[in-house]
């Protein structure tokens, strides 16, 4: 009962904060949000607050950007979406994925549904060959044999790395490593992709290609980044975090053109929007 009341409360809250786009319930045609976060708070073990009552939702097939200065709590938020934080999951779920609450009993299911791409590909690429790495997630799900071979091949195909199965991760370029990480995440069949700084460390061509790749992928996407041009190109909506609080939420163009707001939170208006009227 209490849980339902909290969800309803969150629905109201996001309705208030989302102006203009008419996507107030965070739901697409089905009305169920791919991801719903409700009053999420977190303190570091030292007692410092990292997140304070953050609430938002992401519709299926929606791509939203999470912006904020360094130390705003972006990465901490992303770790929560996969149940990696806090160490002990609360009994009252703050996060729902496809309307499934994130609690101790559903954690394996949620980790399959929410694909998390880490900032440093070196942390995510753990196996001795590309095949083994992409197969890591599906193996945990009990996939094996010819099915696994096919799945790995398809996932590598999705990121444009056909035939890379036998390559060794330490001999790949940074961009290729990131793509292999993405293939490893896609192989688990997630419905929400959560990306931490996906364009960092990539050269302009790598960034362009990775952006095109992300645009072509189906499902909901949440991108935490400092790359404002990436946000302008891919995201329809933006969340701005500062000192663990959600300070602004709204359509990308109107938020990113608001110079005062951007400067107040350690950001700046992207070049591509410099000559754009905030309401135009």
């Amino acid at each position, binding site marked *: 009962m209490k849980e339902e009341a909290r969800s309803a409360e969150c629905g109201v809250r996001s309705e208030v904060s989302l102006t203009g786009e008419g996507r107030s319930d965070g739901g697409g045609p089905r009305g169920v949000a791919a991801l719903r976060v409700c009053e999420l708070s977190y303190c570091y073990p030292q007692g410092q607050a990292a997140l304070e009552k953050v609430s938002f939702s992401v519709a299926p097939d929606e791509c939203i950007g999470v912006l904020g200065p360094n130390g705003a709590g972006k990465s901490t938020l992303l*770790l929560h979406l*996969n149940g*990696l934080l806090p160490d002990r999951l609360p009994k009252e779920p703050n996060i729902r994925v496809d309307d499934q609450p994130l609690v101790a009993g559903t954690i*394996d299911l949620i*980790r*399959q549904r929410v*694909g*998390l791409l*880490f900032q*440093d590909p*070196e*942390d*995510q*690429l*753990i*196996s*001795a*060959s590309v*095949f*083994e790495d992409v197969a*890591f*997630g599906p193996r*945990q*799900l009990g996939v094996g044999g010819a099915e696994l071979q096919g799945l790995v091949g398809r996932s590598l195909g999705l990121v444009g790395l056909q035939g890379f199965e*036998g390559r*060794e*991760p*330490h001999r790949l370029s940074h961009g290729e490593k990131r793509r292999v990480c993405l293939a*490893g*995440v896609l192989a*688990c069949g997630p419905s929400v992709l959560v990306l931490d700084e996906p364009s960092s460390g990539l050269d302009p061509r790598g960034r362009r290609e990775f952006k095109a790749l992300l645009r072509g992928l189906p499902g909901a996407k949440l991108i935490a980044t400092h790359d404002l041009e990436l946000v302008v190109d891919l995201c329809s909506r933006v969340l701005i975090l500062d000192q663990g609080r959600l300070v602004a939420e709204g359509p990308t163009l109107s938020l990113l053109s608001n110079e005062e707001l951007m400067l107040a939170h350690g950001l700046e208006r992207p070049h591509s929007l410099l000559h754009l009227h905030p309401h135009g």
Partner: protein
Amino acid sequence: MKYETGCTALHRASPRVKLVAALILVTGTALLPRRLGPVYFAPAAVLGGLWLASRMPLRYTLRRLLPAQTFILGIALLSLFSPSARPGFPATVTKSNLCILALLVLGWTTPFPELLQALRRLRLPSVMLTTLALMCRYLPVLAEEARRMERARASRTFSRKRRIAWQNLGAILGRLFVRTADRAERIYLAMCARGWR
């Protein structure tokens, strides 16, 4: 151990056969009598033949065998004081070097991922497989990190005093340890994110 892209028959042979053969050779050699005798020619001849067939360069072989000698000599010295009081020193040195040579030939002719695959088929417990895979994956990353830190240190070192060099080395090792622990934490999180339990 480093796999070299070669095209000898040994390189093409099945990794599982090579792995089992290497294990038999190592076990067989280790079980030889403690006194050096003609029987030692058998594994030496087999290994010599395999070494020639693998076309592993002599320099490479010696460079890989050399660091192991410290440990081998240590153990061989200990064997001199063993209660059985039989002359085991030359036998221990020969046995150990033959065993290492067998593993070197295996590593030279088989890519590590294929070895892991073979071990998986031989039903090695998955925790051990994961540990081996992580080691193979992260040793180059760790080496690269150490190289970068050493370079950064060198660019800011203006003294050739040995005491300062040792202090710096200590600081680098400490920092490397902390960084590795941090990375281990992030790797663990990334593994959990993909369903590791």
